[in-house]
């Protein structure tokens, strides 16, 4: 988890940037390593050769030169030193001599500022001579120390106390080495730049399938399940594309099967209701005959006849409701909107159902107009009031108000409240379900069991919402909110 922020910061770069960076890193490391190794080897070779030549040549010079010991400083010694200095290889050098307190050199100063104490110590320790590379004031020097020795026996050498030093400028070698460094750098940088091109090509070849995959996934997400991507070549990305296409195919098929099954189920419900409607039309037309003649029949036959008549009526309502709900399911329900005076529409609904007595009270301000489907709005109000009278208890109050909220279109709010015990909390989430029975003991209500489900669909068709709840003082309340799509009445 602690690596989270870092990883996400890395991911903040696009895949293209990351691929390019990785490519450049690899190219840079290999070019740099090659250049560095080449440089080191070449530099060593250049310097080694110069050193070896210088050390060997100095040793020879020193050995060939005879020094009278104990040594006296002065012209003679400087002359000898200058003689050695002239024969310096590969470059001229300055020779210094140190013997006891005697200091002499072939140059201007008798004592060198370049020779280090370490070299002096090494010179005393090693009779075959030592050397050291020193850089002073930006100028590279090779300093060689060569002690004069006596051959006491074939195996042992005795130091004479005289030590000769040679100081040689290595400027030429340094120039060579610098040239090498320049060459290595000049080779590596263009190489790095050239590496960008295959890097870009590789990134492109990886990224194009990735982009296609992304677009295809988006297309699938937006519902075009027949989306496929072209498979190119036989690399891992082609495998990925193939897998994507196979999964898409399977998904498309399952969705198609599901949709077909759902459509079949809906068509079946719709077909059943259609088929039931024709015999019902014949039966319903003659229920009146049954009702009228029942009075003249014997008691049992009369009861049977009245039962058939009453249940035929209920069956007709149920079939109509089933037809209605299957039209919503098939999205075949149309909104035939008209501008109406809402208070008048509600009053007509209550009047048509003979709910004009004390059982239903109204709080309907005049002058609220809205664009509604009058038939569907009538069904909504009638269902809610009928439901309140059946399951709650009178008086039922229907109230209406228009509300304008900021940042949303004006809405029409209709509330239907009853004076019953309210809806049990566990029933509230299911109250709009089809055939939901709030009371398990009640096997069949006066309605079809589809009333509130149809109400919900009708409200949704108006782009509205409906919710059920309980009042603080008891009693259920249904609240319908529908966008008005209309201005205040006038003109």
């Amino acid at each position: 988890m602690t690596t989270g922020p870092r990883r996400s910061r890395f991911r903040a770069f696009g895949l293209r940037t990351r691929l390019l960076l990785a490519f450049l890193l690899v190219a840079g490391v290999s070019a740099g390593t090659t250049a560095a190794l080449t440089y080191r080897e070449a530099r060593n070779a250049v310097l080694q050769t110069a050193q070896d030549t210088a050390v060997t040549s100095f040793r020879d010079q020193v050995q060939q030169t005879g020094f009278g010991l104990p040594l006296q400083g002065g012209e003679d010694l400087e002359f000898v030193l200058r003689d050695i200095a002239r024969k310096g290889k590969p470059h001229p050098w300055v020779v210094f001599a140190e013997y006891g307190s005697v200091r002499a050199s072939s140059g201007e100063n008798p004592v060198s500022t370049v020779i280090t104490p370490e070299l002096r110590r090494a010179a005393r320790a090693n009779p075959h001579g030592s050397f050291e590379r020193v850089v002073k004031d930006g100028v590279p020097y090779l300093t060689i120390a060569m002690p004069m020795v006596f051959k006491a026996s074939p195996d042992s050498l005795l130091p004479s106390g005289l030590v000769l030093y040679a100081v040689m400028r290595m400027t030429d070698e340094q120039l060579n080495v610098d040239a090498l460094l320049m060459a290595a750098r000049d080779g590596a940088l263009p190489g790095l730049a050239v590496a960008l091109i295959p890097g870009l090509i590789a990134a492109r070849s990886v990224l194009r399938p990735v982009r296609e995959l992304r677009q295809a996934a988006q297309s699938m997400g937006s519902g075009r399940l027949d989306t496929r991507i072209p498979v190119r070549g036989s690399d891992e990305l082609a495998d990925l594309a193939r897998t994507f296409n196979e999964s898409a195919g399977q998904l498309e098929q399952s969705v198609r099967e599901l949709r077909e099954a759902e459509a079949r189920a809906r068509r079946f419900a719709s077909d059943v209701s259609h088929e039931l409607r024709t015999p019902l039309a014949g039966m319903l037309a003659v229920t009146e005959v049954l009702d009228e003649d029942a009075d003249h029949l014997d008691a049992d036959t009369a009861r049977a006849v009245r039962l058939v008549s009453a249940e035929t009526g209920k069956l007709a309502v149920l079939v109509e409701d089933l037809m209605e709900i299957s039209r919503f399911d098939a999205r075949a329900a149309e909104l035939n909107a008209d501008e109406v005076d809402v208070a008048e529409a509600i009053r007509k609904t209550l009047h048509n159902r003979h709910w004009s007595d004390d059982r239903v009270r109204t709080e309907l301000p005049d002058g609220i107009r809205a664009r509604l489907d009058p038939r569907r709005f009538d069904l909504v109000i009638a269902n809610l009031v009928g439901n309140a009278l059946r399951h709650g208890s009178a008086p039922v109050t229907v109230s209406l108000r228009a509300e304008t909220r900021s940042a949303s279109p004006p809405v029409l709010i209709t509330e239907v409240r009853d004076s019953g015990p309210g809806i049990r909390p566990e029933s509230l989430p299911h109250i709009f379900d089809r055939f939901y029975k709030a009371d398990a003991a009640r096997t069949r209500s006066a309605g079809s069991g589809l009333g509130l489900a149809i109400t919900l669909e009708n409200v949704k068709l108006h782009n509205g919402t409906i919710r059920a709840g309980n009042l603080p003082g008891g009693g259920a309340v249904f609240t319908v909110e529908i966008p008005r799509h209309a201005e205040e009445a006038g003109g």
Partner: protein
Amino acid sequence: MSRVLLIEDDPAVREGVELGLRRRGHEVRAAATGEAGLAAMTEFRPDLLLLDLMLPGMNGVQVCRRVRERSQLPIIMLTARGDDFDVVIGLEAGADDYIVKPARTEVIEARIRAVLRRLDDGGAGRQAIEVYGELTVDRVGLTVTKAGRPLALAPSELKLLLHLCAAPEQVFSRQQLLEHVWDHSYHADARLVDACVARLRGKIEDEAGSPRYVQTLRGFGYRFGPL
């Protein structure tokens, strides 16, 4: 009581509706196909045609058009709700009203009575003959002429025109027209009004696209004039 010609292919519905209406004192002739119904028309002389839209062979809409070619017999379609498309086509073909099946006999009879009802006289003391532009409306003889030429108006078209021109320039909402002209409930299908207005305009207006007589007030309804 009235003479009703019923064209319905389903035997149960045909028999049920026939039985119910006959019990209420109507004289009913039932036919199973459109062809048989049209053949019975001249001989039976019905007051009203009760027409199922879904018929084998010649369908209800075709029967409706054929009847309208020669007579202004009141026509009520029998439809199933959900066959919305058929309702609109049937109304455009000239039907005056429709009934959604299944329906009780009392509902069917109420529709029949409403279609056959003569409009209450728009106002007592009115002149029997009124002239509006090129239109001459005879409220007693129930005829309408345009520039002297008699117009063949279906019952619903005539009633709508009489209702609108009884109060020129007054706006009626579609709900009000449904209640007063068709005796429907306030919440019935307003496409009934729109289809009838469209048919009426086709007969009385010079150009149905820019009507003079029956004008639309968007969002409110229809009115007669101003000319």
